[in-house]
């Protein structure tokens, strides 16, 4: 930490619940830390905290975000250092309060303090578009909108993009989560193109529906740190795109190529 350039605050949001905001936040945070960046992940879902569980840090929480805002402790006391990455910290949400415990102004102040200390500040937004959402976008320099290939999730993503734009958070980027190429090929699932056609914003990554994510989430180890499956690769690519690299999207179409060539592809450059 020490004297450095001001960091970048990124809000991960979606409108709809259960599309993978928390998993995405944990993986992108971990991914950036793996690349040598200092990262703070903030759980803005006050009252329904679970980012700590996904990261396996639940048993280390002493103070939380509301304690910091209320002045019960110093910011550095509430930040929990990750088990694996020494440059990765979590600021947990309070579980006993609700969204009104913090105002957008207080969040803005908090995010600005974190930006002084860290290269990246990841804000894990709660579902919905009420105060919790307003809190989570306070001070954000960039927004990642997570959706799944379902009509309802896309509709909510569209609503949230509209709200981000009217809050002057420009150019939100899209993450399509939990896509199943076999279903897309059968015509039973919205395709990347269908979603892009409606939302019309830049795509920053596609994450396939992968058992590895469920397993890693339950273990409290973000999948990106395992590095040997397609979901991990997908999050790694998103991380690198956030850092400004240009990488092609993963080809998820297993039907078009044999299984072997897919494995080869994974092993080598793609």
């Amino acid at each position, binding site marked *: 930490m020490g004297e450095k350039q001001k960091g970048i605050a990124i809000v991960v949001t979606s409108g709809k619940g259960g599309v993978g905001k928390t998993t995405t936040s944990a993986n992108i945070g971990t991914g950036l830390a793996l690349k040598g960046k200092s990262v703070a992940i903030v759980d803005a879902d006050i009252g329904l905290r679970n980012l700590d569980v996904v990261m396996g840090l639940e048993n280390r929480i002493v103070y939380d975000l509301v304690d910091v805002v209320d002045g019960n402790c110093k910011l550095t006391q509430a930040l929990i250092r990750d088990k694996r990455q020494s440059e990765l910290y979590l600021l947990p949400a309070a579980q006993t309060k609700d969204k009104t415990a913090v*105002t957008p102004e207080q969040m803005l102040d908090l995010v600005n303090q974190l930006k002084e200390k860290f290269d990246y500040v990841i804000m894990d937004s709660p579902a919905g578009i009420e105060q919790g959402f307003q809190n989570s976008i306070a001070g954000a320099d960039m927004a990642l909108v997570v959706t799944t290939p379902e009509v309802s999730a896309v*509709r909510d993503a*569209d*609503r949230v993009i*509209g709200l981000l734009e009217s809050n002057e958070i420009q150019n939100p980027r899209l993450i399509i989560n939990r896509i199943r190429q076999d279903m897309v090929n059968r015509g039973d699932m919205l395709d990347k193109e269908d979603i892009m056609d*409606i939302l*019309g914003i830049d795509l920053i990554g596609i994450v396939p529906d992968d058992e590895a994510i469920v397993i890693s989430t339950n273990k409290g180890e973000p999948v990106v740190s395992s590095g040997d499956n397609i979901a991990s690769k997908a999050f790694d690519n998103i991380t690198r795109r956030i850092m400004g690299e240009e990488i092609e999207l993963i080809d998820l179409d297993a039907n078009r190529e044999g299984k072997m060539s897919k494995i080869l592809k994974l092993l080598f450059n793609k």
Partner: protein
Amino acid sequence: MIEERVNFRGENDGVHLIVEGGNFRNILIELDKKLKKGKGFYDGAKLLSIYSEELSILEKIEIAYRLKYKFKFVLDDEELTKMMQEDKKEEKKIVEMPQDIYTRCDTLFIHRTVRSGQVITHEGSIVIIGDVNPGAIIEAKLNIIVLGNFRGSGSAGENDENSIIAAYRLNPTQLKIADKIARAPDEKDTDHNRSSLPEIARIINGKIVIEPYLPNK
């Protein structure tokens, strides 16, 4: 916690609206609160100006129309245009502001995608250079033209059966022209049997009919 305040200042021939703070959502909430409290008091009152340091022109216009349609204020388009121009601060803002939205005569041009939950209301016709997504609502007194995919809901021609709703791709959730309503068929549209021509919805023999647009028609 809300810093936004709205106040009316009366004059002989009408009222001025003074707005403090810049959170548009809160302003609308405060406005509703104020006007619901004094129910009917401002009916027929003439809106002379909206003064605010932070609101954009578009937001002021939205407030003006809200006052007109929801709370029965009197306001005509000319006044509105003049009102916006007279405000010097705003004039500067016109230059600075991204030119995606502007009013000309009685047509409102929107140069962006209208997204779910957003409502565009206008006295005259509305032209949208972009898409209208599902969950968005477009309400025009006259025609609606969309140079993009119209997937939302639209209502045109409040009293005029000759109004049309046209789009480069017309896949609306619901359409209303004058007092006629049509909705999308329940079966999913297979794109194969659709023409790639733009489409126009209009009233023919008392029903809303959607036809491909042929230039010589």
